[in-house]
């Protein structure tokens, strides 16, 4: 197109190719039925979600010298430290798995969870400039972060598989649980992060709460220890942490010697779904005021 914009705008009415759907749907799109409206709106803004996620990924690795290698270095080094510290020194049991596979398979989903919760909780505040200047479904910001972080998760999962093979674990069909379980892991991280993000807009205390809570959460989840180490009477308590069931199954899908904790997984999934519904409700209720507070 070589004509000047003004000329182009002048003739805009005479050009049928100027598509009517060049822009997102009109603002009243959400009026027709709350949930249906929300999903229809989200669908129409799907490209923005993609661009926001793409921006996050691009920016995250653009300035780092080692770039995407960090997604490899972080879980590997932490695994080495954990293996020495908890495996060799503290002598914690590994459910009969090779220690590196044991720690790595817990760490990769954990690192996704912790970084996603942290980043999502900051996603509204750090995009304040956009929030106060333009309308789009606010839920896109947390969603884009959680989606963008999947890149690291997938890289991590590949490292887990490669390490397992190197350590002599035979590949099996149960490994296919990994891609499946990424979905509830994403939903769980997103839900927790979204609630924190909405609170963070009003109460900036959240930014101090999050790192602290994440630290505690690490110990409340069977990552440095197997769930089997927890006495029977406290298992229920462990199951209330929705991440426990997910991590146990992530881990044990690589361990042919152990029966998978389907009951623990079912509890985790139920809690995750509940949290997700709660988080969406809370978020959509608070989002009306985001621009006034952020």
């Amino acid at each position: 197109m070589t004509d000047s914009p003004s000329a182009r705008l002048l003739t805009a009415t005479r050009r049928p190719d100027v598509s009517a759907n060049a822009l997102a749907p009109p603002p009243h799109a959400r009026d027709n039925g709350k949930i249906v409206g929300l999903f229809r709106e989200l669908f129409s803004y799907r490209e923005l979600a993609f661009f926001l996620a793409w921006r996050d990924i691009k920016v995250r690795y653009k300035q780092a010298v080692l770039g995407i290698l960090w997604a490899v270095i972080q879980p590997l080094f932490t695994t080495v430290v954990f293996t020495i510290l908890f495996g060799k020194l503290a002598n914690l049991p590994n459910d009969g798995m090779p220690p590196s596979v044991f720690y790595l398979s817990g760490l990769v989903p954990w690192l996704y969870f912790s970084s996603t919760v942290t980043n999502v909780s900051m996603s509204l505040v750090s995009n304040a400039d956009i929030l106060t200047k333009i309308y789009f479904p606010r839920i896109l910001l947390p969603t884009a972060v959680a989606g963008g972080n999947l890149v690291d998760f997938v890289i991590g999962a590949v490292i887990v598989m490669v390490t397992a093979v190197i350590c002599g674990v035979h590949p099996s069909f149960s490994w296919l649980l990994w891609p499946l379980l990424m979905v509830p892991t994403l939903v769980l991280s997103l839900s927790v992060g979204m609630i924190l993000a909405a609170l963070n807009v009003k109460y900036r205390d959240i930014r101090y709460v999050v790192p602290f809570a994440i630290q505690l959460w690490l110990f409340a989840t069977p990552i440095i220890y197997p769930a089997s180490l927890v006495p029977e009477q406290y298992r229920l308590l462990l199951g209330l942490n929705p991440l426990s069931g997910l991590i146990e199954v992530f881990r044990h899908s690589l361990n042919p010697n152990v029966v998978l904790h389907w009951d623990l997984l079912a509890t985790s999934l139920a809690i995750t779904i509940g949290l997700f519904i709660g988080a969406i409700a809370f978020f959509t209720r608070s989002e009306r005021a985001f621009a006034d507070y952020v």
Partner: protein
Amino acid sequence: MSYSVAIEGISKRYRIGSRANATLRERIVQWTTAPHRALKTTAPSIWALRDVSFDVLQGEVVGIIGRNGAGKSTLLKILSRITNPTSGNMRVRGRVASLLEVGVGFHNELTGRENIYLNGSILGMRKRDVDRRFDAIVEFAGVAQFLDTQVKHYSSGMRLRLGFAVAAHLEPDILVVDEVLAVGDAGFQKKCLDAMEGLQSGGRTVLFVSHNMAAVENLCSRGIWIDSGQVRMDGPAKNVIRSYMEAFAGDDGAGTDLSDADGRLGDGSIRFTRFEYLGPDGSPCSLARCGEPLWMRLHYRASREVSCPSFGFRLFTGLGTLITESYNLLHGTVIPKVKPGTAYIDVRIDSLNLLPARYTVSLWVTDEGGANVYDGDVRTVLEVEPASIYASGRLPEARQGIAFFTQSWAQPVVTG
């Protein structure tokens, strides 16, 4: 013709004071110690908008004017759905694009090319639409050779051009624009105005907020004057602008009391209290005359000691076009210190090269770098009377423009 935007009784209340910004701890303390009070006490609040209603017809270009803090921006934010009204209804027919800032969501680490896609998508364009208009956007912005450079290396002008270029290629049914034209160099502003005019004749509905009255007058058929959160006047743009300018002008040229001027900015470390004109003889006068010297005496009160302040004024036409701005530091006059108390400072204009009309003078005072505003946007009127500048018996007139230059004419020289 059918409406594009219909708003009925829109009000917006903002909570101010402690409650709105309470920290989590304060909230918890409040709820645990006195839950009944936490429920009952209403925080102090201000109404940014109060019962605003109007319809905008399809294809209408409406200028929204008003002083700073009158509620214009809140209105635009509600129209663009960034914030929700406290009460009232809004109905919109068509796709809305809002342009409250140019280059929203630009990311410094990304290249120009990447930012075009990101920004376009934030503004509501689809990728294929950006693809299709990409070359036109780049051409409009004039950044072709920097496309793959990170935006952090762009000058502010380049950023601005790129941002506006993307925005100018949006094709909404309704466009909501805030003050976008107030920035950029003259050439670029012209380009933006042309694009806006294109929008106008393209049959789009435009809601346009600006302090540039000339732009509003040129672009808009209708004006809405928002004052203290309410619609004060709604009608043909020309009439609304005239009333608006007159309302601030006051009617006393000499010795205007500024101590309770409304809409002023700044923290009040220094406040202008009075404004006087002095004639050629140094005595107060009420008339300023074309071509004669004019002294402006700015009386102020300083509430604390301020070092190296920057006093300045802006001169506007009756339609709000900035004619000139000047300040003491520009002239190399450094005022080392202002002591608490009252004082005045004189500005001497050697020759007032303005044609007869009513002008607006806006005073400001800031710190040396301009970062802290002590007082600002304090307006008063300057009425310029015709005078026989050239002693030729003919008087200069307002229709000859805004300003004049002193000149001389020679007799024709015969060349053939």
